[in-house]
């Protein structure tokens, strides 16, 4: 592309950002002369250059907008919402043409005559319409009514203009490869004043420079591509440094050691500074949001004020790019579902104008971004009902969930509270997608709400994506890096933790839960090299789902520089990038989301629940694992019972327990289940948990279920257990040494016979 056109595009995009921002501010402060002038100037600049580039279509639009603005500036026409909408539509049209220019170097052939006509029609002062009526009998009374009618009529029109322009405006946004954008906004790189002066080319200090150092003196515009390239080179340098440090570690040469130490030091600092050149204030993203909020609020008939705090908070531009979509979606959500209509707000005794606050700050090496609205809050019961309806949770689980847990259900796949699908937040993109997008860059998101008052959505994201902490693992001789953010724990696979198969899916039992697992070598189809004798299980988290990954060896934890993959590998969803280790080996970085879905681990939550349920039932029913025992504690002792006696483990809240026919019962799975306190049945004092939760073992026979109340589950053990018959006590088979501790073996059948005989006749 011709350099001049390129410069024009970069400058005009900037101008249009400013144009839009100032217009929205002008809506709040319609009398500001300064704002009108600034808006006028941006459009004027665009128009002024058009003539040189032969852009007649763009010039016509800018010209019409400029004329209208000059009348506003001179006070001939007073600024109103109709004008604001028309001018915003003008901005959209200008952008659409710019986008077209960027792609095809032509203005495109969209017709904007309607928009131009609208801009021309708005140039008539509102009072003029009234003037013709002014001669009638009651001029003073007629005038205001007529005057008001004009903007209302005009208001319906601006909606059309952006729609016409839409195909062109959307095209660049939908472009999946941001790299293909010829125009990348350069970032302003602040250069410290001292550094600038130290440059040999700097002129001798001239004391009489009138305004001292100007802003333009201490910043230079640098192309982002150059910065990316530099970052890449620094990454290479870091890797080479690591190799050199490793190689010289064994040398005896003192000067060599010293030089190496310096190299180490400088490289670290260089890397650190380099990272800083890539940061941008989050305002780069936020400054585009007032327009979004304004348009949406108008569409929903709401009044919303958008405020920001910490707009100067700095983030790597790749991170800013990555949070753009989720952030916008969350904000749309706040406008659509968070803030109530002015009537509702008035009825609730609130200011009819709602407020959404965007807040960003650094904390604990992460950036926290909050979106806080002062709306009606999330209706917890409604969320719960919806989750039950969609089978996202079981009724038992629902009863024990905290408000916080319930609210965060909205991030689950298949959940959407919108009662009608609005075209605002219901764009077929659920909150689960938002969550996935944020987690993909190693971030977290959660919601909290205060009924009637506010809802806060909190996003925590890393400062950069270029360097990430990982754990290096080995598989058949190859090395792989697993991002720490996805990693929960690492466990050695031995005879206490064996791989079983449920429904043809390999699983392990981990603290009472079934964890589906995948073997890294089989997922990646690695056939060379040897499997190690002892393998390790890496427990990973991807979104809501957990799964285990079996690898051979666990190496060290490291901070690595992420390098993009070559084109040949980008189609493979299992890898997020590559890195070079200290010893010069290349390690591929595993993409946990991709890996999980490749291993078909991610069924919907509902399917996963069903899977778990069935898996448990099966594991128990077949009796294939006779020697498995569930170890728990009750009444201060350690007890165990064969796992095949356990149909399920359930947790209830104490309030759910009711009395019926002189017995404690609970509603469970649509019927009434009697509860037996194991500690009382065994002759111990009853202990009550402090958290109001009741742990039970569900024992089922012949279609009837009994809940055995225990204090808590410890583990599941496997192996040959030698039972010592110890005394004759009701409900106890004997005792055994399990895991080096004396454990009582419970005879559930006997207990139930004694305490709930009527049920199992």
């Amino acid at each position, binding site marked *: 592309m011709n*350099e*001049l056109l390129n*410069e*024009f595009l970069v*400058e*005009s995009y900037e101008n249009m950002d400013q144009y839009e921002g100032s217009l929205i501010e002008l809506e709040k402060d319609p009398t500001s002369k300064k704002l009108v002038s*600034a808006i*006028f*100037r941006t459009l*004027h*600049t665009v*128009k*002024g*250059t058009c*003539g*040189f580039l032969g852009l007649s279509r763009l010039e016509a639009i800018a010209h019409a907008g*400029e*004329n209208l603005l*000059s009348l506003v500036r001179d006070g001939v026409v007073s600024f109103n919402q109709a004008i604001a909408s028309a001018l915003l539509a003008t901005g959209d049209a200008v952008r659409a043409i710019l986008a077209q220019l960027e792609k095809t170097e032509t203005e495109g052939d969209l017709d904007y005559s309607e928009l131009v006509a609208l801009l021309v029609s708005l140039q008539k002062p509102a009072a003029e319409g009234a003037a013709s009526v002014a001669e009638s009998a009651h001029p003073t009374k007629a005038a205001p009514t007529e005057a008001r009618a004009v903007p209302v009529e005009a208001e319906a029109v601006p909606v059309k203009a952006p729609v016409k322009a839409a195909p062109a405006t959307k095209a660049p946004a939908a472009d999946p490869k941001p790299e293909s954008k010829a125009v990348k906004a350069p970032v302003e790189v602040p250069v410290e004043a001292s550094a600038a002066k130290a440059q040999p080319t700097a002129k001798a200090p*001239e004391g*009489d*420079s*009138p*305004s001292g150092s*100007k802003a*333009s003196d201490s910043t230079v515009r640098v192309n982002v591509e150059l910065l990316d390239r530099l970052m890449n080179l620094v990454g290479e340098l870091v890797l080479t440094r690591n190799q050199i440090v490793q190689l010289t570690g064994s040398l005896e040469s003192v000067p060599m050691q010293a030089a190496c130490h310096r190299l180490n030091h400088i490289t670290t600092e260089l890397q650190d500074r380099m990272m800083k050149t890539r940061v941008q204030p989050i305002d780069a993203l936020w400054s585009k949001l007032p327009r979004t909020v304004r348009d949406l609020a108008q569409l929903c008939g709401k009044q919303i004020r958008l405020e920001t705090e910490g707009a100067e908070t700095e983030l790597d531009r790749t991170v800013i790019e990555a949070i753009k979509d989720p952030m916008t979606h969350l904000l749309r959500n706040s406008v659509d579902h968070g803030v109530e209509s002015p009537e509702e707000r008035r009825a609730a005794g609130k200011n009819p104008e709602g407020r959404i606050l965007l807040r960003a700050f650094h904390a604990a090496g992460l950036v926290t971004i909050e979106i806080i609205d002062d709306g009606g809050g999330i209706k917890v019961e409604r969320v719960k009902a919806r989750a039950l309806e969609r089978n996202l949770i079981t009724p038992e689980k629902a009863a024990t969930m905290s408000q916080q847990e319930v609210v965060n259900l909205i991030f689950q796949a298949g959940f959407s509270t919108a009662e009608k699908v609005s075209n605002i937040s219901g764009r077929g993109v659920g909150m689960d997608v938002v969550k996935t997008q944020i987690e993909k860059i190693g971030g977290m998101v959660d919601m909290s709400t205060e009924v009637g008052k506010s809802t806060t959505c909190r996003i925590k994201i890393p400062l950069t994506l270029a360097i990430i902490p990982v754990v290096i693992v080995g598989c058949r001789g190859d090395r792989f890096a697993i991002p720490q953010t996805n990693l929960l724990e690492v466990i050695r696979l031995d005879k206490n933790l064996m791989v079983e198969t449920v429904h043809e899916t390999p699983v392990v039992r981990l603290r009472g839960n079934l964890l589906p697992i995948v073997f890294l070598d089989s997922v990646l189809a690695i056939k060379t090299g040897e499997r190690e004798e002892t393998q390790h299980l890496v427990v990973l988290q991807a979104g809501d789902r957990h799964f285990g990954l079996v690898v051979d060896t666990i190496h060290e934890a490291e901070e690595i520089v992420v390098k993009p993959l070559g084109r040949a590998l980008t189609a493979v969803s299992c890898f997020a990038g590559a890195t070079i280790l200290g010893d010069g080996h290349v390690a591929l970085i595993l993409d946990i989301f991709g890996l999980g879905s490749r291993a078909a681990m991610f069924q919907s939550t509902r399917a996963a629940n069903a899977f778990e349920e069935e898996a448990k039932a099966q594991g128990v029913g077949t009796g294939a694992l006779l020697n498995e025992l569930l170890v728990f504690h009750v009444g201060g002792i350690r007890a165990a019972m064969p796992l095949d006696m356990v149909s399920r483990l359930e947790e209830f809240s104490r309030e759910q327990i009711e009395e019926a026919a002189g017995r404690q019962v609970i509603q469970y799975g649509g019927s009434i289940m009697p509860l037996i306190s194991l500690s009382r049945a065994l002759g111990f004092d009853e202990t009550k948990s402090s958290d109001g939760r009741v742990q039970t073992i569900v024992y089922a026979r012949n279609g009837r279920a009994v809940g055995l109340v225990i204090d808590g589950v410890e583990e599941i053990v496997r192996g040959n257990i030698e039972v010592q018959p110890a005394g004759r006590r009701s409900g106890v088979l004997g005792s055994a040494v399990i895991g080096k501790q004396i454990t009582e073996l419970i005879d559930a059948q006997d207990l139930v016979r004694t305490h709930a005989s009527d049920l199992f006749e």
Partner: protein
Amino acid sequence: MRALIIDDSRTMRIIISKIVREIGFETGDAGDGQEGLNWIAENGFPELVCCDWNMPEMNGLEFVQHARAMPGNEAMHIMMITTESEADNVMAALEAGANEYLMKPFTKESIQDKLSILGLVP
């Protein structure tokens, strides 16, 4: 000979500088009137200033007023760059001390014509 180009649009500065260089000037540039004054303070008076009208901070008219108030500015020619919508302003600028004006969009030839009126080119 030196020319100072004052315009808040980078694109315009590139366009004007290119033409003026082709005619035979060395060029310097500034983003608004104040920066223009600073440039003069640092580099002395150029033979020619091409100055945009509508700029943030200090506009073209204010620049002309300030520049003409500086001692020793007599040899400097100021040419206002303007558009037809600002035609009224041209008079004000000429009264304040601008020598010529040029209407956007212009060509190399139209600049050359104006400069020969000013006697800067043959």
